[in-house]
């Protein structure tokens, strides 16, 4: 059933993309994995999508679900021509064919397990039986990496899913014993929301979330989008969009996109093949 839907999506997208091309103004959906609330996601991504769409000559419309799994489902169904996600490296999803075209420049990302600064828990061992907040079952650095470690270390915890990264951080701030989150996002959140925390476990580093293109999107269009993203930081208009994004996130660091290749994320694929964590 899933497969039927999957293919139907590809067909639909293809029709859609072709239609867009033919009419030159048919918008393409851009999926963004739910790291923040839908509104904040829209506020931060809409200026970038508007610029890139304009630059690439095809309108890009943000399309997300209520939660990361819902968005991932949409991506799985082929509803997104482009998707900013790192959930598509599982062996199952890898088969759909989304290809990495870009990645956010900067430090690689790591998963961390953190407690509040005043927490009595000193090590991961202390978390045994404790409720731990996770963004979602699909979150790579927020769930797969720490859970894999916990499982391999024999530490059983009570899983609490918050829907997205900031949701998990918010859970830690207002109740849960610990949270497993993307360190980079944590730093942004903590400075914005004044969360005082202590890291008790850090994962291996992984490249940040990539922008992937649906296999049905013509290569030329993909390339145009890729070029638009990459040239953004050098273009005053692009900079304006990036500033709007940073303002929405209340961050001083401007995003910058770099060319990336699909093989750059093979370590994700390898992890999924070796992990003890059961997916859905």
């Amino acid at each position, binding site marked *: 059933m899933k497969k039927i839907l999957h293919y139907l999506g590809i067909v639909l997208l293809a029709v859609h993309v072709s239609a867009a091309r033919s009419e030159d103004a048919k918008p393409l959906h851009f999926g963004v994995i739910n790291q923040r609330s839908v*509104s904040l996601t829209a506020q931060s*991504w809409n*200026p970038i999508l508007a610029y890139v769409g304009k630059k690439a000559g095809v309108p890009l419309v943000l399309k997300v679900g209520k939660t990361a799994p819902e968005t991932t489902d949409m991506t799985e169904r082929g509803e997104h021509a482009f998707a900013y996600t790192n959930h598509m490296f599982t062996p199952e999803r890898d088969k759909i064919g989304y290809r990495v075209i870009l990645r956010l420049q900067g430090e690689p990302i790591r998963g961390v397990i953190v407690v509040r600064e005043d927490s009595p828990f000193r090590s991961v061992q202390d978390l045994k039986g404790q409720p731990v907040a996770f963004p979602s079952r699909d979150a790579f650095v927020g769930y797969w990496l720490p859970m894999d470690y916990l499982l391999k270390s024999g530490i059983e915890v009570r899983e609490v899913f918050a829907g997205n990264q900031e949701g998990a951080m918010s859970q830690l701030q207002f109740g849960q014993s610990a949270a497993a989150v993307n360190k980079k996002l944590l730093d942004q959140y903590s400075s914005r929301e004044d969360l005082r925390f202590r890291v008790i476990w850090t994962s291996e580093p992984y490249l940040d979330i990539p922008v992937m293109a649906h296999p049905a999107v013509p290569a030329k269009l993909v390339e145009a989008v890729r070029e638009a993203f990459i040239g953004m930081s050098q273009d005053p208009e692009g900079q304006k969009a990036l500033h*709007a994004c940073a303002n929405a996130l209340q961050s001083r660091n401007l995003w910058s996109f770099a060319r990336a290749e699909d093989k750059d994320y093979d370590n994700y694929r390898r992890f999924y093949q070796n992990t003890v964590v059961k997916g859905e």
Partner: protein
Amino acid sequence: MSLADRFNAAWAGLSLLLRIATVVGTLWLAGAIFMVGLIAYQDRSGLIESDEAKAKRVLLLAAPMVAEQAIIGDYAAIKQMLERQATVYAEISLLRWRWEGHQDVAVNVTTSLDRPPAWFRGLVNIPVQRHSSLISLGGVSYGVLEVLLDPSVTELRLWRESLANLLLILGAVVGLLIVLLVMLRANTRALGQLADTADRFRQGEHAARIRVSGAREVRAAALAFNSMAERMQQLFGQLSESRLQLREQLHFTEALIEALPVPMFFKDTEGVYVSVNRAWEEFFGIPRARIIGRTARDVFPYAPEIAVFHEQKDEDLRRNPGTQVYAIAFSRQDGKEIEAMYSKATLADAEGRLTGLIGTVIDLSELKQAERKAQEALIEKTAAEHLAQVKSEFLANMSHEIRTPLNAVLGLAQIGGRENAGRKSGETFRRITEAGQHLLEVINDILDISKLEAGQLKVEKRPFSLPAAIDGVVNLVAARAEDKGLALSVRLADDLPVWVEGDTLRLTQILTNLLSNAIKFTGHGEVRLSVAREKEAIYFRVIDTGIGMSEEQVARLFMPFEQADSSTTRQYGGTGLGLAISRDLARLMGGDIEVESHPGEGSSFTLHLPLPEADAPENPVAPVASGGPRLTGISILAAEDVEVNRLILEDMLGHEGARLVFAENGRQVIERLEAEEPGTFDVVLMDIQMPVMDGFEAAQQLRSLAPALPVIGLTAHALAEERDKCLAAGMVEHVTKPIDVELLVAAICRHVRCIAQASEQEAVMHEPVSSVAQEPGKDVIDWQALVARFKGNMAFLRKLAESVLQGHGQNPAKLREAAEAHDFPELAFLAHNCKGLGGNLMARSMHELAGLTEAAARGKSEEAVELAMQLVPLLESLLAELTTYLADTENV
């Protein structure tokens, strides 16, 4: 009736309380409504703002949720969410999301609320509010959210709030009104009480007072009323008292008018009688009942012309209000002729309007008759007075005219008598003299009586020696008593004063008269004079053993020209004026003469006079020796125009040893004196009536020409004023003609050192002064003379001696002191005292020596000291003699 009138009528009927309630209630109600409106207006603005805020809040809440669902594309969720939001506020009537080209979601809410009245809605006019919000995220529009607000909810809320406010404020207004009315009612009750009390007061309950309570003003009103009531009660009391007094006064006035013996009437302005008094009824013989309400014509029905006259007079008075007096003669109804005086006055009321007239009628008939009689009497009296005056002047002139020739007659007779003494012609001259003197007495009596009648006689008050005066009188009559073989005795009381104040001349005249009469009317037996003192009065009693008088005779005794019997005149002679004059003189001097007599038993005449004791005069008259040439060495200038008189004077004074030079008028006197050396003449005798220059003028001129030269006036006028005029002209004395040589010599000697005194002085001077007092056996006082002088009145002498010892006992020492100190004024004073003492006590040597001493002391001569030292032993001897006398006579 207009609406305004109706309102006014209704308003007038309202009590004060209701008026206040109506006005205040209306005002407060209006205020309440205005306040509710004001609050509603403020609420309306607030509610509109609040609605707007609600709309914005809904938009603010719903917009991000709508945006999120729009990004996700969950439109069903958007509808659900909008439906939920639309019910949050009742005001929301529509919530709609429109995304152009995508979706249009609208939620309508219908309300079924009560609605306020249309007028209220119209009044508050809440607008329909429409608010919308553009939804945009990251520069991408997600449509428009719109909200529509229904005004009816706000209208209803405002209506309810306003109603609640209105009720609340109305409640407060009613509450306040009730409080106000309760408060006011307490005070209006006091006002009601005030009205009630005032009414009671008006009805006569003057003790009614208000209980003071309520607000300050009401209390003040009550207090004011009470104080007014108090004052009015007092006033009512006073009023009724005054009314009572007024009634009494009115009654008194009526009674007075009724009782007045003067006929009175009152008429109104028409001349109608209003009332008359009893005297009027009696006067006119008409009872008042018959005349009140009628006019003058009814008083005089028989004489219309009289009535008309009165009416005209009334009319005149009415025209010129005031008083009116007129006299009228008419016949009364009973036929009596009446002369009456009408006095009328107009009567006016308080405003000055004429109300009538009042009149009195005075019957002048008797008065007129009396007046006529008085007139006649007056004429008679004037005539009598004139007659008296003429008589008096006639007598005075007569006296002068008779005296002048009598002076000549007597003078010549005296000369004749002296020169023919011892011969028969000498006896004839003596008889001429006696007859002349008798004539002079008669003239003097007539003069006196006429002066007394004319009130021209004046008595003087001067100190005189009472014993000397008595002595003089007794000397005068002693010869006559002796002639008739009568015993004349004098008894003086022990306490008689020596010096008294009075008229010695008149006393002598009265006593002489009384003693003369007693001697005259006593055939044999004795005549006795006893003098006694009772307080200030001296009683002189002359008792005889003569013929006596009947009561009838006594009654007529003091009438002028009367004697006890006309036969008496024939038998005893006399003018019959003596007693009348004596009594008038006694009365003039403040005393009187009383008589006690029985026929055949003799008579007793008592003269009593107020003769107060007096101090001895400083220079008592020195006694002058009688007989002999007393004026030897005196040079006299005499002015006399009548030759006979000059002859008499020359004889009289020449006989006394004086050198006489004559002038015929005043001018000649002046010329003579101017021609002669000063000191040529010792004295001037001045006749008054002379040609060329009379005596007065000459005396006046002499005052400046020779001030030291004494001038003695000689006049035939015996009147007192003549003497005063003489003294005023500068004369020192006044001697009346016919001239009595004794009197004239005495007068001259009073002012010139005469031989009578000089001889004594010379005697003293010739003897060694020191031997005067030291010569043993010879007294300083001439005791014989002294006892004779006081008629052997030992008591009187003793008293005199005591008085002298008491008053002069210290004088020898004082004299000595003054002499040693050469104190001339003191010496003069003491010597003067001694001179008087010597004169009085007949101590001639001392009198002379003292006189010399005084003169020397006044001239501040050292001789005075020596003389004073000689005077001291004399004075000491005199005092010793008096002491001895007192000791010798002590047991007598």
